[in-house]
């Protein structure tokens, strides 16, 4: 079992609906803690909790503003080791997440589900310590549109 903490930077693309459907690029960041349990057969399960923010607010040509938000996200995932050399492992995992976010200043709270696929690498660096890197792809179902986030995360882990 590995406990890890990581930071992630993302490019978030929002897609609205309607004839003037916008494709708007925001950027996102998150700080995440996770726990991952690896089974000997190559399966893994992972739970994580993150603080995420997406900004800035952006306007479409028709005057619709897709606003920034920030909040917390809890996720679960299951996956498989693609490679597991002596020095670490490369894994692919996927699962759902639920985010509770707050609009800036307005006090409006929203909850939205998302689906997350992640390619992660864990490299042992000292006994009981590891570096973790991940390439997550997350689809956020915001109800009035979709956001797709492609990120890059780096962190450290303890455990084995």
């Amino acid at each position: 079992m590995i406990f890890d903490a990581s930071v992630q930077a993302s490019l978030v693309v929002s897609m609205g609906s309607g004839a003037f459907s916008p494709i708007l690029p925001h950027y996102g960041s998150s700080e995440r803690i996770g726990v991952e349990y690896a089974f000997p057969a190559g399966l893994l399960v992972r739970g994580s909790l993150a603080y995420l923010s997406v900004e800035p607010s952006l306007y479409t040509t028709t005057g619709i503003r897709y606003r920034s938000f920030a909040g917390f996200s809890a996720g679960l995932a299951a996956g498989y080791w693609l490679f597991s050399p002596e020095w670490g492992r490369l894994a692919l995992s996927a699962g759902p997440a639920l985010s509770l976010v707050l609009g800036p200043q307005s006090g409006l709270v929203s909850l939205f589900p998302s689906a997350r696929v992640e390619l992660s690498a864990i490299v042992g660096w000292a006994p009981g310590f590891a570096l973790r890197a991940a390439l997550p792809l997350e689809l956020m179902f915001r109800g009035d549109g979709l956001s797709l986030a492609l990120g890059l995360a780096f962190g450290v882990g303890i455990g084995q």
Partner: protein
Amino acid sequence: MMPKTRLARAGRILFPLAALTALVSCSFVAQGAESRPKGTAFVFGVSEYKAHKLTFPDDDAVSLSALLNRRGWISKAVVNSNATKAAIKNAIEVAAANLDSSSSFLFYFSGHGEGGKDKEACIIPYDGIKGKADLATENWISASELKAWTAKLPTKNVIVILDTCYSGGFIETGASLDLAPQNYGKLDDGIAPSFPLESLGYFNELLARSLASKDQEGPLHLSAAGSDELSFEADTWSHGVFTYFLLEAAEDGDEDGDGKVSALEAFAYAKRRLADAWNKKRADWLYEGRYMDYLPRASGGFRDLVLYE
């Protein structure tokens, strides 16, 4: 001076990707540099009821309409005896017949409102009061009526702003939830729960809203007060309190500095100013047996609309 009530008025960390984002933003947001078509606004205000008169709603409507005309809208103010139920319905029907899916539409009403814990919220047009004891309730416009009328608009870019008592009763749709209690105030039902832990108490409603995608593109509602609150006008500002701060938001409400003030930016500004300039002094003042502090409410999802360009 004692204000007059509207009786029932009703990446950090993201250096590499930020650069990429900026690059991509330039190409996409270039579309946004084109000026969008002007929106259509109908702005109603009634002070001169036949009884239970108010002082400033007609001024609210005239001032807001003039401001909107300067800031990206084609707006018409309709006040006092012209602001009847039929006129309001007709304005929305005309808009429904003439707008298209890319248009923006704004409806504003300032005047009396009615509602409360067990009543559907209504706004009261000019012909909704025929005498001191003659309330022509058949001419009141309920939340469900207004919703049915605006549902016929061909665009989803609709802003509804109500400066009346109990106007929070018009707020029901949207992916987001305004967590302030409907009768705000430490001496009333309390204040908004803190985010995120206390707001988890609203998990079921938030989840239902998240799943009810059908309603998430309804009008963006801004209301002066909760569904169980009075709203006020004040001689100090010569306007309805909420409307005064909405007007002020045109100059000072651009929180993200992008040169435009969205409806939710204006709302956030007005809410903060109202809390500071009005509520702090009046949390324990009583008017007709009710505490005078109140709070604007909003509904909507992740999309917001330009209010002032």
